[in-house]
């Protein structure tokens, strides 16, 4: 069995599983946030009216909650959602509730790794499509809607069809100024935005061995944009070190068997990758930066679970150091822990000296919610994950998806720019 099959077999108490088997898997961790959480609360209210018991959760210690989409509260309605969420976690005894303005908080997927909320080998489900991110730690991490999350909260398990697995063998270290985001945009451009639909996208090879855990998180995060059920990387010493730095040492490393089967194997020379962009209006509408259209940008947005981890901010700082931005540039670290490190290591000074605005952790404008949404005809270059019509604001705004380095270089020139051109 491959890693996903082994995790799902263990979780469904079977000796083996194969693609297309339908199982009920025991869940190890479940996450909800200020959009999926109020949805769960509505499901609970409805169940209660139907006479179904909702007075306790299956295991509140396995549940954690993030405030991220509309925080700091965008308006009255989003403030009320945060209050509802707080009442819910209090009522059900959920202790892991990351609240903004109270120490560590941030985007749910970022907290999943920054706070070591998920362990290798876990079945982890979250009420958000980019739950796939956390597969980089060697977990089966999969996004669900709020009805399914409510079901997990009450029952501790959920049905899955065991996915077939596409294996992406990555050869060699990424060149300087080329990031994991470039590589995954290239892959999504090749296979299409439904190219991984219903499947696992697993990454391996020397390209993964060379890659930091944070870069692997970027790869797995964007598997959602190929329609994948989950993204995964087999855990290695780098994952062990990453988690132990965050206080987590009690876990088992699950890896695939030597005769693991994959439905398809793709091979990429990661050492030959170039900076990429995804043009409006789909993450699979990609080209190399060198062939990007010559457009006048209005804004550079460096944020989200995809593109505002510490490593992403470090890459941005390399470009912005000693330079000035030519267009509006917003930098929103994805969690307070990252914000703090950026402050301690001088990154925030570099950003502010360059003229950028640094904002608090939030999903914010990535999903067109608040804090930097786009006007009609505005054109944004962004380290985020989606660029569908209206994704970041007005339906006639445009978003180009890129790596943090390309977004930073483009902030400096006002045009879509290869970071190597500034070196």
């Amino acid at each position: 069995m491959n890693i996903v099959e082994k995790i799902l077999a263990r979780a469904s108490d079977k000796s083996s599983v194969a693609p297309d088997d339908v199982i009920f898997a025991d869940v190890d961790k479940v996450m909800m946030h200020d959009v999926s959480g109020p949805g769960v609360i509505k499901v609970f209210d409805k169940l209660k009216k139907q006479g179904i018991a909702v007075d306790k959760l299956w295991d509140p210690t396995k549940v954690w909650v993030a405030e991220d989409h509309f925080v700091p509260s965008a308006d009255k309605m989003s403030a009320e959602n945060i209050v509802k969420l707080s009442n819910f976690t209090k009522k059900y005894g959920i202790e892991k509730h990351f609240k903004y303005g109270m120490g560590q908080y941030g985007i749910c997927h970022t907290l999943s790794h920054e706070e070591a909320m998920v362990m290798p080998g876990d079945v982890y489900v979250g009420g958000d499509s980019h739950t796939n991110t956390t597969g980089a730690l060697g977990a089966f991490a999969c996004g669900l809607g709020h009805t399914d999350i409510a079901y997990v909260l009450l029952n501790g398990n959920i049905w899955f069809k065991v996915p077939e697995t596409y294996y992406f063998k990555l050869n060699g270290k990424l060149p300087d100024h080329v990031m994991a985001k470039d590589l995954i945009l290239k892959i999504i451009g090749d296979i299409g935005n439904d190219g991984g639909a219903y499947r696992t996208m697993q990454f391996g090879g020397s390209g993964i061995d060379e890659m930091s855990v944070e870069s692997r998180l970027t790869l797995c995060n964007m598997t959602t944009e190929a329609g994948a059920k989950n993204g995964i990387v087999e855990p290695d010493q780098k994952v062990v070190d990453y988690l132990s730095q965050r206080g987590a040492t009690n876990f088992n490393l699950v890896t695939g068997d030597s005769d693991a089967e994959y439905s398809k194997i793709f091979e990429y020379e990661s050492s030959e990758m170039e900076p990429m962009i995804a043009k409006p209006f789909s993450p699979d509408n990609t080209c190399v930066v060198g062939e990007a259209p010559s457009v006048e940008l209005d804004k550079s947005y460096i944020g989200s679970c995809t593109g505002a981890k510490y490593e992403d901010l470090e890459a941005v700082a390399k470009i912005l150091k000693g330079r000035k931005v030519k267009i509006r540039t917003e930098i929103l670290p994805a969690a307070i822990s990252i914000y703090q490190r950026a402050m301690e290591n001088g990154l925030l000074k570099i950003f502010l000296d360059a003229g950028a605005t640094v904002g608090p952790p939030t999903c914010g404008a990535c999903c067109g919610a608040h804090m930097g949404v786009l006007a009609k005809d505005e054109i944004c270059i962004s380290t985020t994950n989606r660029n569908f019509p209206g994704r970041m604001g007005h339906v006639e705004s445009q978003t180009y998806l890129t790596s943090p380095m390309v977004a930073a270089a483009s902030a400096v020139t006002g045009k879509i720019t290869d970071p190597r051109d500034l070196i």
Partner: protein
Amino acid sequence: MKGNIIKYARDNIDTDVIIPGEYLKVHDYTELATHAMEGLDPDFHSKVKEGDFILSGKNFGCGSSREHAPIALSHSGIKAILALSFARIFYRNSVDGAFLLPIEIDQDAYDGISEGDEIDIDVSKNEIKNITKNQTYKMKPFSEIIGKIIAAGGLFKYKPDQD
């Protein structure tokens, strides 16, 4: 199940156009329905009728896990989506929450059915009748688990132990 078709002859209708992100804070489903399809078709809310079906191309519902998407459509009156294929979270949200039927169709049905056509979906026969044009097409049968959850009326009413 009979209804009339609203056709969007395109692929990749994503959750951001089905219900834009700014409305994710809205949990009043009647209000949510007034913004359904706003990113693609601002006239949708005024033209949709109770019992209508949407017909579209590949990868319907791609993007976010927001259950707001099937909810906004369902509370607009939409009973089924007929599409060449569906994105996975939209598909399972539609079924597990018992909001609407995601019906996978083939190219013949996609090409043959037009805006406004009256359609009769017979899930027991995996058949779609076009009453307006007097044509019949096949639908892809639901997988076993999906069929059972639909028959039960959603995931919470489905009892896996009784299989």
